[in-house]
């Protein structure tokens, strides 16, 4: 396992941080979060043309840059820090990883290059209104119709599902669990943006009524690639979350150093110093877990399922606790709409639940460790 970043990786991080500070200031976050789409295609294209971020972990054979999950983790940490409003987690992390894991060689050659260059936005539709994060929740049916399939059912909590060009869908047929691809504008598919707590990450409900779909990979063979995709997604989300947590922690410290009460900065009170020390330890420990998970994903470590769940649980708790403390430290102003803290607080709350809450992941970790 890798416990430090190389100087190239550190350099990449600092370039990325400057870039995102420039492209995703909170004024932009606030503008995009008020739109139904939640992101802006022109800005997204610019982002990809300059840094090629959507291609980062996609293999070079399929138009990607062929970097590892460690580099992808760095990208996500910085995006989480900047609260970037873009279909990155949906398209690059979830959908592209599912296609890499499940698709046939020909499908990977066809689908991945357009995701890698950012021209196609893909989403992964696996959860349903029952809100279960594993395959046991999949009730959507796939029925063979000549050379194609038809999908019926409802998918929910689909990140960027209402704006994606391509939707990778998990459904159940006679052969068992399979992945399919469906065009975003397919006949019989109705899409609705859900009202969400975190407006910086849009969720959609997708209704499928006899929607024509193409099998992705092997019929009935989706269980393993789906599980593999989920462990990697959990590792990625953990990294995104620690980026947000670090940003909040720093903002709470900056504020405490500025705010004067009783004739002194509130940073000079021991109760505040100890709180900040506790925040630092929460965030640094969660970072260590998130980095360990990214490193395990990069190395295809057999222990990844446990480590990824550990990291997701750790990052969820740390991000949420940091968000709570950051609002507390800001006092009344921290509870206002104009103060930026609530933007990260809401991302922390949604991320705590997204892909499985801490208790769910702790149980998954225990099962992975055969306890």
């Amino acid at each position, binding site marked *: 396992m890798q416990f430090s970043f190389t100087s190239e990786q550190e350099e990449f991080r600092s370039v990325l941080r400057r870039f995102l500070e420039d492209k995703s200031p909170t004024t932009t976050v606030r503008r995009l979060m008020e739109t139904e789409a939640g992101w802006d295609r022109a800005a997204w294209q610019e982002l990809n043309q300059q840094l090629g971020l959507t291609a980062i972990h996609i293999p070079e054979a399929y138009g990607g840059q062929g970097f590892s999950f460690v580099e992808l983790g760095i990208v996500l940490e910085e995006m989480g820090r900047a609260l970037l409003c873009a279909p990155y987690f949906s398209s690059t992390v979830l959908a592209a990883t599912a296609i890499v894991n499940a698709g046939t060689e020909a499908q990977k050659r066809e689908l991945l290059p357009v995701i890698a260059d950012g021209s196609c936005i893909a989403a992964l539709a696996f959860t349903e209104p029952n809100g279960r994060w594993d395959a046991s929740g999949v009730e959507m049916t796939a029925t063979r119709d000549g050379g194609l399939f038809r999908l019926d059912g409802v998918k929910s909590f689909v990140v960027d599902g209402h704006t994606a060009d391509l939707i990778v869908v998990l459904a159940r047929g006679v052969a068992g669990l399979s992945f399919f691809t469906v065009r975003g504008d397919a006949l019989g598919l109705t899409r609705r943006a859900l009202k969400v707590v975190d407006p910086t990450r849009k969720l959609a409900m997708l209704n499928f009524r006899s929607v024509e779909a193409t099998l992705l990979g092997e019929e009935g063979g989706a269980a393993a690639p789906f599980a593999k995709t989920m462990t990697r997604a959990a590792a990625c989300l953990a990294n995104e979350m620690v980026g947000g947590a670090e940003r909040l922690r720093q903002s709470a410290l900056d504020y405490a150093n500025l705010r004067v009460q009783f004739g002194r900065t509130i940073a000079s009170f021991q109760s505040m110093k100890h709180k900040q020390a506790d925040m630092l330890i929460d965030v640094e420990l969660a970072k*260590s877990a998130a980095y360990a998970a990214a490193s395990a994903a990069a190395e295809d470590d057999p222990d990844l399922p446990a480590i990824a769940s550990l990291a997701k649980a*750790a990052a969820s708790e740390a991000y949420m606790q940091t968000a709570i403390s950051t609002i507390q430290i800001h006092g009344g102003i921290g509870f206002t709409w104009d103060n930026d803290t609530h933007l990260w607080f809401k991302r922390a709350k949604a991320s705590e639940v997204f892909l499985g809450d801490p208790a769910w992941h702790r149980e998954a970790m225990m099962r992975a460790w055969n306890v």
Partner: protein
Amino acid sequence: MTEMTEASVRAEVRAWLEANWNVDYGLVEWRNILIDSGWGVPTWPTDWYGKGLPAGLAAVVDEEFARIGAVGVAKAGIRRLAAATLLAHGTPAQKQQFLRRSLSGENTWCQLFSEPGSGSDLAGATTKAERKGNRWVINGQKVWTTSAHHADWGLLLARTNVDVPKHQGLSYFIIDMHQPGVDVHPLRQMNGHASFNQVFLTDAEVLPEHLVLDVGRGWAVATTTLMHERREADGVRVWGQASVGVGRIYDEERAENATVMEPYKWYPQRAGRVDLVIERAKAAGVNGDPVVRQEIAKLLTLSKSAEWTARRARAAQMQGRPQGPEGSLGKLASSHVARAAARVHTLISGADAMLSGADGPMNGLIAEILVSVPAGSIAGGTDEIQRNIISERVLEMPKEPRTDNDRPFRDVPKNLVM
């Protein structure tokens, strides 16, 4: 000199060990050979038994020793701190007198810093050192002194001037523990062990040449000792694990360890024994209980995260990078881990958590965990002091307002009851 690389150091130390290492040596005899070679303390300067290697390359030396089970210089316990402190601040005569015999293990040491009236506030020590004729005469009381009952020498922090601010009135001495004025009493702890001592100093004497650095500069020397103590807190236990090898030198090493490490035997329990949790849950048949599973998982998440944080800190150190915040969190993190582990052991044990000794789970080991954990968040800097250090040094927040630094120590309020 050719530039040293990992490969060249490895080759050199390997060749040296092949030519010299032999299990039939006596422990002290071997260590003296090692001390002369420079491989015993490779980071030390070449003038004083070392090779001047950076920490990253010294790790290679450790690996090579470990690979063939070669015994190193005496590292366990306080003598390592004594050696490091005297290397930094000792006079040539002090180095000559003490360094070799400390590295060889012939001298044992104890640290006379804490007092009943000054724990976290170590610089508030009131033990007096007065110059009388050709001697320093020491009067006062020290506490929490590990190994004082068998130490040859003590590292003593004492007050030489009450008319200046507290930090300026301290001096650092090397005191001979084998003298009538030094009275050592074991201190019984809440877990029943007596790993520490109280040391009563009544007209005890120190030779003038055993003052370290200058009069009034004792705090700077003590800071060096404490820095090494913090850095090596984990090392004390690791080094204490004697080899299981066969041969005269291993027998002698095991005997040495049995004495030196005796006070530390409950330290693994103090740290919470996370390693026992899953096995115990299975043995107790509660590993299927969802509440127990959640609590175990929380504990493992915390302990793994703390372990990985320590490894990040070490990786940065090995690369010679400036230490990030992760390097200052270990002590506080281990307190959290220990407390969480004690909670989980209690949950797993149920009613048996009330029992100790032969009636208790694991023949009393679990009970020992439960009543030893409170020490971890106090010893070596309380959690509260750790938070002050993290907030002031890492986060650069304002320092605590001080009312005791700007006036003579004589006028600073002190404990009425200890």
